[in-house]
């Protein structure tokens, strides 16, 4: 769409005539859409979990993203139909969050923290290494995120992911890894390309302290105030 001031009167009339009442996006009729059964089930499960239907917006969008790789307009419309809300409502939620993609992104998502702790520990080099290994544009990655041309990777500089103790760190497909060096970036990308688990030795979730597979690990009970001891 072009700004109307750049159009001739005839073009403007044409543009306006192209906007049809049926193009307005109200709540889509579920019967008119072919929502994939698995997607529908995930969304309905999420809806059942909350007293307020709208609380399921994020899980629903997440399910769409898992299903289509990103929140495609069609996917958002399907989720809206299942939830009985307008796609616009879901789009407002989706565009608010960085982790919900409303344009196509690479298959593996690598978020490199570049906030203060990680930055002091070499985040810029790490981000650069990930970009180079994946084939993503460095400048873009630092701003809005960048995908590799082959569509395999999406790399984005991110704000503090709350894991400063393992700075510099990155989140790869929803898992935290750190501390990382440039060489780890190359290894991680290679592993992902080969369809393997990346950097298992640096995965936060696999550490004993995180309840990882260390037989000697004992579970720590939260104290009376609910803090971890």
């Amino acid at each position, binding site marked *: 769409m072009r700004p109307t001031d750049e159009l001739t009167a005839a073009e403007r009339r044409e543009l306006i005539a192209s*906007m049809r009442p049926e193009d*307005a996006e109200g709540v889509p009729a579920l019967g008119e859409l072919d929502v994939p059964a698995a997607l529908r089930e995930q969304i309905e499960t999420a809806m059942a979990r909350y007293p307020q239907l709208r609380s399921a917006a994020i899980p629903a969008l997440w399910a769409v993203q898992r299903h289509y790789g990103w929140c495609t307009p069609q996917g958002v419309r399907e989720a809206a139909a299942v939830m009985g809300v*307008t*796609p*616009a409502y879901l789009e407002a939620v989706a*565009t608010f969050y960085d982790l919900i993609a409303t344009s196509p992104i690479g298959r593996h998502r690598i978020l490199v923290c570049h906030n203060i702790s990680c930055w002091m520990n070499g985040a810029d080099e790490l981000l650069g290494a990930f970009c180079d290994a994946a084939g993503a544009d460095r400048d873009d990655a630092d701003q809005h995120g960048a995908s590799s041309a082959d569509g395999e990777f999406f790399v984005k500089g991110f704000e503090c992911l709350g894991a400063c103790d393992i700075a510099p760190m990155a989140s790869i497909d929803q898992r935290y890894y750190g501390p990382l060096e440039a060489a780890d970036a190359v290894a991680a990308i290679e592993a992902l390309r080969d369809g393997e688990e990346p950097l298992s030795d640096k995965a936060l979730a696999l550490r004993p302290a995180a309840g990882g597979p260390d037989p000697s690990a004992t579970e720590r009970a939260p104290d009376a105030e609910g803090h971890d001891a």
Partner: protein
Amino acid sequence: MSAERSKVTLVVDGVEVTADDGAMLVDAAKEGDVEIPVFCYEPKLGGPVGACRMCLVEIEGIPKLQTACSTPVRDGMVVYTRTDRVIESQSAVVEFLLVNHPLDCPVCDKGGECPLQDIAMGWGPGRSRMTEPKRHFRKPMPLSPLVRIDRERCILCYRCVRFSQDVAEDEQLQLLERGASSHVGTFDDHPYIAPFHGNIIELCPVGALTAEAYRFRARPWDIEDSGSVCTLCPSQCNVMFTVRDEHVQRVLARDNDDVDAGWLCDKGRFGFQMITSEERIVEPRVGGSRAGWEAALDAVAERLRSAGERTAAIVGGQTSNEEGYLIQRLLRGALGSANITSVDELEAGLARRLAAPELGAAVPDLDAAESILVVGTDPLNSIPILDLRIRRAIRQGRARLVVASERPTALDGGAEETARYAPGDAAGFLAALAAELGNRRQAGAGTPGRAADEVPGDGSDWAEGARRIAGELRPGKTVIVYGERLGRGPGGDSALASLLECARALDLATAGAGVIGVPEGANGRGLREVGCLPGAGPGFAEAPAGRGLDRIKQGLLDGELDAVVLVHADPIRNLPDGPGWAEALRRARTVIAVSAFDDASTETADIVFPAESYAEKEGTVTHPDGRLQRLRPAVPHPGNVHPIWQVLAELGARLGHETGIGSVPEAVATIAAEVPFYAGITPEEIGGRGVRWQERPAASAVAELAAVPPEQRTSRTNLDRDDSGTLTADRLRLGTYPALWADEITDRNVALRFLAPAQTVELAPSDGERLGLASGDEVEVRSNGTGVRARVALNERMRPGAVFLIEATAAENANALPAELNVEVIKP
């Protein structure tokens, strides 16, 4: 309406102020003539949100500055609005709002009437420290064919988005993205098209949302405001015409909480272009050629004199009370004919009983009702502003809504229960509901009554629906919004009689409860009250029985009637059996039409008088809840258009019936003298806000209106449907409905034309499957050899066995089908 609130006293900037307890500080301060600047505060949108921080003030005893828009007053509060701290925060907020604002006032439509300009001047620092580049958006973009958006000017106050979410509940308009990228938009850049979306233009405190039709047309110092009432539908919203050089350039809301709660629908807001349309009839015409008034009046007088009592008149909904009164007087007084009716014809006795003052609910009663029953109408199509009103009542959690209708309504989603009866079965359903409610009432009083399923007929599902509906209705605390079209057709009288029975069983003749009838025509109620009803004169006075619509048509066909006068009425397009009307008008010896535009009915007319537009008219109309409202002329008459009341009075005089009415106030006085429940009313008393006649002392003079024969049971006789009404597998029952945009107003306003619906046939998905039809298929809906082409729309909320077509579309009009219940849907 609301109980008197207790008062509190506070001090604002040293001035003692008395205000309602619970009022927000910003409103209370006005009582002391103190203005606190606001951006996001707009009570019409619901509770305050405190989003913009423009209204910060200092309150003694509270360390931090407080938002005056969301702080309720307390007794003894001491408030300062001009301390250094407050001034500093105000100028900081203004500076912040202007950080990204383009300040393109010289080319901005809002310039001169812009709250941002005013507040920046009044409370801003005067200078900005910002040297960074501002946000840039491509602009202006069409948000819809009627509204353009300039996102650079937007100050992110959320008003438009709140309107879409919380008032219209269409939720198409959203705030997308976050932080510095936030902007107002829609899903995937789809247009925002919804029946009330024009309100966002008026809500926007800056020039971010502008009206396509008003862009660059005028500056505030070029224009005059002229208050009147929109008579494009029965909502009768209060409007303010923006007039420049004697042309209406814009229509704004003139907030009247008792009528419209400050909103307009898009028809009312953008439907003014027809006033200056080139296609308007602006001169009298005799036999197809232009004529002067003298010649035209002589011609009409002569023809009517010879037709005499063999004359009939049909009065359309846009007609004012004065015009309606004069036309009935012309017929009854000058011609001795009793054949006068409006398009909102009801049986006279029922009309009288339904108008009973203690039974009538006022629009604001919807706000406080505990339950609302919408029956036989879809407010969105027939009285749009009540759709918003009912939504608000539900949203505020006070009312439970139940909907009983043949066709799905826009309000179904918010309803606790819905019952869907088949087209033509309203009488059966309402009888079941009345029986169920009566039964419940008697059970409450200890006497067992009849159960709903004892109602004769095959209405087992009526009984079930009636039970569900009745279970939600609170005696004495219910408002029923019913479509007066329930009174149409063979079962019509019985349907309305049952409705009255429901009202009685629910004790609705109490304050805060009652019924509101939704007429088809904007002034349907007023026209009946001033005597445009066969068998009832002004004030429902007994009058000789006359022909109603069907018998007028028949009389014209049989040659028993010679002449028909159409006052703002186009029966061929708007009444059932259009072809029958076309034939009747063709056969009539004389057709006289008062019309603003050429249409199928004026084509048959021998003499055409040009009609005034509503912006030119002076007079009164009566809202469906009994509120008399004043129409005031905003612009002069174009061409050779004369006030219709004058034309009718003059005609009477030529026919030897002097009315003595020489002005609109005199007409009002005459009506007030004849309609007992309007007694003494004057234009001054009606004023700018209107007055409900039920709330005036004169209403008590008509207690007999309410005197309903005790326990007059509904006559069940015409409940027995003829066999054509039985539902069988391959026969579908046809219902028709008036769609919001299927009317002449849409066609006559260039800007609205895109909304005119193409004929659509709605079916339940199960019927679609059985007939092998999918949404979007082109089909023909046939009945008795006549067909209408339509596109299929399967609708899950439709009742199986029923199909619906739209009335009064410009092409493929459902009214072109014979008045037949059974149809076939065929794929050509």
